[in-house]
């Protein structure tokens, strides 16, 4: 899912990368300037990155209810589904890395044998939270996803092995699976939680990757932007690119679309503005009111609309 196709690679190399390097990002919007305005947090509150980046509720009342009224809503089916499919992908990628280290390059056949064992994630404990139909669709899609990613990894490894006869495990892992999944980050410099977790990060050209299973939304780019700012604050190197990976299942088939984007001045300002507005709302305990166009699967529907 996180690997780019040949066309996407070309796009990245010929378009996004040179453009992002040429583009002058205002220095005050670089994460490493977290100690001065506008990045310096105004309020002494820590927010999760998704709390800033998500705008599913048009007035952000969900955040108010959670933070001020302490309402604990159960995730809706789409949220749960997204969370579990994410986990499947993480499991497959981490298993592949582990197996390479375990068997070594010399025992590639053993790696293949074990890697081919179908990956089954146990979702049983979530069964009660989903309808029968939702649950079986989730199980089916998880299997499609795991199979797809498994064969993708095998193909990548084989491609590298035929080119690099003297390669060792560590290098093979970094070439075949060049992403760190669930990268843990401390966002406190920017007023974010200490325990952030970016879906994936590639080091070859610093790029934040975020996987989505729902409809594309404009504000999804705020997630990659937030992580880019945090990365810059921690490591003091520029992170100019983000990539949203949209996965969709249709008639038993997986389709993947990618939205590669430059983390430009505008996205950075948008993120900071959202952060400041949401922090203020919480700090001052301002109820933003019920939206006029609530989405019907909102987990807070009952709290707002009875």
């Amino acid at each position, binding site marked *: 899912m996180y690997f780019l196709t040949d066309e996407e690679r070309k796009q990245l190399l010929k378009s996004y990368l040179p*453009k992002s390097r*040429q*583009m*002058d990002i*205002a220095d*005050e*919007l670089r994460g490493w300037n977290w100690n001065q*305005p*506008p990045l*310096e947090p*105004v309020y002494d509150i820590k927010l999760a990155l998704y709390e800033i980046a998500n705008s599913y509720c048009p007035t952000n009342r969900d955040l108010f209810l959670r933070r001020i009224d302490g309402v604990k809503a159960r995730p809706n089916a789409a949220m749960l589904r997204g969370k579990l499919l994410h986990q499947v992908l993480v499991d497959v990628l981490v298993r592949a890395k582990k197996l390479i280290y375990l068997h070594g390059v010399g025992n590639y056949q053993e790696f293949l044998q074990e890697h081919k064992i179908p990956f089954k994630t146990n979702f049983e404990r979530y069964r009660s939270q989903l309808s029968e139909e939702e649950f079986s669709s989730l199980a089916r899609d998880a299997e499609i996803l795991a199979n797809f990613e498994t064969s993708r990894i095998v193909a990548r490894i084989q491609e590298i092995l035929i080119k690099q006869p003297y390669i060792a495990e560590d290098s093979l892992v970094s070439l075949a699976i060049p992403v760190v999944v669930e990268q843990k980050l401390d966002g406190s410099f920017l007023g974010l939680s200490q325990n952030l977790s970016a879906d994936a990060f590639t080091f070859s050209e610093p790029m934040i990757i975020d996987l989505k299973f729902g409809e594309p939304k404009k504000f999804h780019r705020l997630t990659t932007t937030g992580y880019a700012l945090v990365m810059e604050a921690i490591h003091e190197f520029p992170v100019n690119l983000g990539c949203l990976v949209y996965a969709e299942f249709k008639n038993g088939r997986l389709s993947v679309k990618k939205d590669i984007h430059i983390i*430009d*001045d*505008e*996205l950075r*300002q948008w993120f900071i503005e959202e952060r*400041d507005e949401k922090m203020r709302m919480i700090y001052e305990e301002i109820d933003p009111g019920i939206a006029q166009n609530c989405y019907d699967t909102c987990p807070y529907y009952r709290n707002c609309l009875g």
Partner: protein
Amino acid sequence: MIKLRVTDVKQYIYCPRIIYFTYVCPVEKKITRKMEYGKEEHLELDRLEKRRTFKRYSLSEGERRFHQYLRSERLGLEGKLDMHIVSEGEYFPVEFKHTRKGPSLNHKYQLVSYAMLLEDYYNKPVRYGFLYIIPEKTPYPIQITPNARIFVKDVLEKIREIILKERIPRPNQHKGRCTDCEYRNYCGDVS
């Protein structure tokens, strides 16, 4: 639609309260020495620019047009652009800035606004513009990206909202800006 000027975009980004003091609760502001000085430098620069080649803009040839008044009904925006270059069928807005700190965000979006006006004027897309930083004698190329255009439209909307709702915005976070601001005396809650 409320008609706005390109300088409003610049001012809004510097501090949204300036919009309030300009349109909702107008107060008198003094022309600072910095502004006068800037004007003189501009005139001198116009004179010099006329004789220079286009090399520093990475263009082989072109024609300079000075102080074009631009207006777009569609955007509800108007302004007078310092200079623009017409080169091989393309148009490049240039704004001269007298600042020691290099290009800033309010200058960038001022330029983007002019680029959008220039597009309406010539009916042609504008891909690049330049912020000419006078003390450095350097033109900084600025790409006019789709996101930057959306950002400007958003700013225009926010400015109109301040005017329509007559609500005073929060002060900006950059305390250094308040120190330099001509409206400082009117901002009661800024120490």
